[in-house]
């Protein structure tokens, strides 16, 4: 099959070359060819890029050394401007090395100027187009494979959950005596089933998390969180397990540690992953120490560390521990897990804007570190409150919800809080109002909205929120609530600096919140 039968229509070629002689050589060579070419010329890279911006040719014939760009930079700039166009590099006889480099940078092929003849040029042009199409197809199919894998993973996880839930529910029926009296021995066995279904459920959650992390769907809902509270939860959950393995698990949280801006559930998940990981590689008699303090490198972050006295990670493997599916061999515990925990932790920490890293010494132990931002009202408030270099007028709306009665099960109270937050979130206007982090107390929760309006304007929003809360049977039956408007004073006229204004309004917001919480 000759090339002329393959190419039916005219091939659009953009020649970028500053030498008139070279441009002429190309023109003459292609005129002699049996194929039809539409040639367009540019003498400078800027001119070439401009032409690429207006009209996409089928291929670019590119001289590396132009008056306004030299060497690999030339290829890079063209690839950046037109990633979908094949590039054939024109090079002087002696820069073969440079030409090869260009191919690595993104060009499809190169042709040496001294060797240009009609046949060679035609062939090189068409091979470049063909090769580019193949590469594009390959990239697309690889992308499709990745997407398919994640879809598959997510589907499988959902399908696995249903029968697992079934096993769990029936075991629970037995345990609750709904299938007749249960002996102590049977109870023990049933508890083993329950513990293992719980473990399997966590693994499935990890699979789902990993799948969503890969498609960028792992989301966090940050709030103002007290580190000590999360650490207490962790100790309650994993303390017994550590004790069972004969490992000392202790935590030290610096006194008067500032609040962090984090998703409490996700922060707990990261800590669980790190401590469970440490438990896997530490022998009986060892120690695991959890620390949290203000980062020495950056006071805007809290640094956590989980140190174990386990056998450490081999230096060759340290860089790989955060890879998905990475498995350290010879874990002490027989439960090796899926190798997803650290990859998910990394994704979660990065979503929070923090960093995670590890230091390890073979035979001595391993320390995992990660950072989470300190809660800062100005950082949250300023993007929403500053318009045209000034702080806008605003009003705080406080929504206080209280557990209807003490006998209300925790689960019901939690879903009620969630529903309330959801309602408030949907009442506000995202580009005008701002949902401030909620505050939790034993039997009440306070949700705050920073309404971008004066008091009469905010009252309308407050009424809307109250109306929506009243319309929800789930809320009405489980909690009591009230809403109130707390106007903020106008910025003092003498205050000109924007940062001063932001700090001032934040103090006023804090005062208003303090007043609402105390009342």
């Amino acid at each position, binding site marked *: 099959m000759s090339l002329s039968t393959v190419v039916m229509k005219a091939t659009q070629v953009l020649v970028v070359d500053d030498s008139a002689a070279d441009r002429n050589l190309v023109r003459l060579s292609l005129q002699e060819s049996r194929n039809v070419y539409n040639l367009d010329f540019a003498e400078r890279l800027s001119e070439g890029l401009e032409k690429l911006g207006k009209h996409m040719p089928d291929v670019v014939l590119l001289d590396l050394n132009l008056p306004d760009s030299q060497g690999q930079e030339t290829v890079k700039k063209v690839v950046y401007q037109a990633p979908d166009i094949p590039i054939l590099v024109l090079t002087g006889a002696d820069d073969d090395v440079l030409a090869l480099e260009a191919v690595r940078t993104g060009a499809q092929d190169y042709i040496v100027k001294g060797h240009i003849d009609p046949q060679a040029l035609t062939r090189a042009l068409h091979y470049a187009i063909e090769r580019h199409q193949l590469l594009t197809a390959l990239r697309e199919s690889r992308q499709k494979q990745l997407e398919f894998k994640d879809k598959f993973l997510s589907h499988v996880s*959902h399908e696995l*959950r*249903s029968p697992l*839930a*079934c096993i*769990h*529910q*029936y075991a*629970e*029926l037995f345990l*609750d005596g*709904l*299938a007749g009296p249960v002996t102590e021995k049977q109870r023990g066995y049933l508890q083993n089933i329950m513990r293992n279904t719980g473990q399997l459920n966590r693994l499935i959650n990890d699979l789902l998390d990993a799948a969503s992390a890969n498609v960028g769907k792992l989301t966090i809902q940050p709030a103002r969180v007290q580190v000590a509270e999360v650490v207490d939860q962790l100790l309650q959950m994993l303390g017994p397990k550590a004790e069972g393995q004969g490992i000392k698990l202790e935590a030290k949280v610096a006194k008067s540690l500032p609040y962090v801006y984090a998703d409490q559930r996700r922060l707990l998940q990261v800590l669980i992953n790190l401590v469970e990981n440490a438990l896997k590689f530490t022998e009986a008699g060892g120690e695991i120490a959890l620390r949290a303090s203000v980062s020495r490198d950056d006071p805007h972050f809290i640094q956590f560390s989980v140190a174990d006295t386990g056998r450490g990670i081999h230096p060759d493997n340290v860089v790989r521990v955060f890879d998905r599916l990475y498995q350290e061999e010879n874990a002490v515990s027989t439960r090796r897990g899926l190798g997803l925990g650290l990859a998910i932790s990394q994704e979660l920490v990065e979503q929070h804007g923090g960093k995670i890293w590890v230091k390890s010494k073979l035979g001595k132990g391993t320390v995992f570190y990660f950072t989470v931002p300190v809660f800062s009202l100005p950082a949250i408030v300023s993007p929403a409150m500053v318009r045209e270099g000034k702080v806008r007028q605003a009003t705080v709306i406080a929504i206080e919800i*209280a*557990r209807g*009665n003490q006998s*209300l*099960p925790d*689960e*019901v109270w939690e*879903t009620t809080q*969630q*529903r309330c937050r*959801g309602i408030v979130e*949907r009442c506000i206007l995202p580009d005008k109002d701002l949902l401030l982090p909620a505050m939790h107390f034993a*039997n*009440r929760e306070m949700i705050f909205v920073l309404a971008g309006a004066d008091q009469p304007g905010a009252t309308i929003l407050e009424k809307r929120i*109250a*109306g929506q*809360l*009243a*319309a*929800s*049977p*789930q809320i*009405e*039956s*489980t909690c*009591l*609530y*009230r809403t109130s408007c707390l106007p903020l004073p106008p910025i003092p006229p003498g205050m000109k600096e924007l940062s001063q204004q932001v700090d001032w309004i934040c103090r006023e917001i804090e005062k208003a919140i303090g007043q609402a919480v105390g009342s």
Partner: protein
Amino acid sequence: MELEKILIVDDNEDLTHALEIRLRANGYQVLVARDGASAVSQAAAQKPFAVILDLHLQKEDGLALMQEIHQHSELSSVPVIVVSADCSPITQHKSLDAGAHAFLEKPVNHRLLLHTLHDIQMRSRKPEASKVSPQARPLYDSNIWK
């Protein structure tokens, strides 16, 4: 309407059965429907005080079925508790906005479910309690904080 009759609409037999045992043990009479048509006809004939509806039935859209139930002349006021394994905020709000009485994650936490059912029963006994307008709703008594 009988205060102990509940209708479960779910096509997963094993899960439904476990739930059925649990609800029976708590004194409820349980009806089960595997599809929408049977759900509507059973509800109309038996008048349960609440319906537990799986959002993801194999052949039907749960929300559409809920709407069908609510549009039925005799079933318009039956509270529907939606259950789903997908507990994303979007799904929850969609269900609640479409008129669900409550949304519960699947597998259903039975304490949460029993509480919700109990609550519906209490309201049915005192229908006037739920008819308070938002403006007239009193602020809570401050001593409950203690």
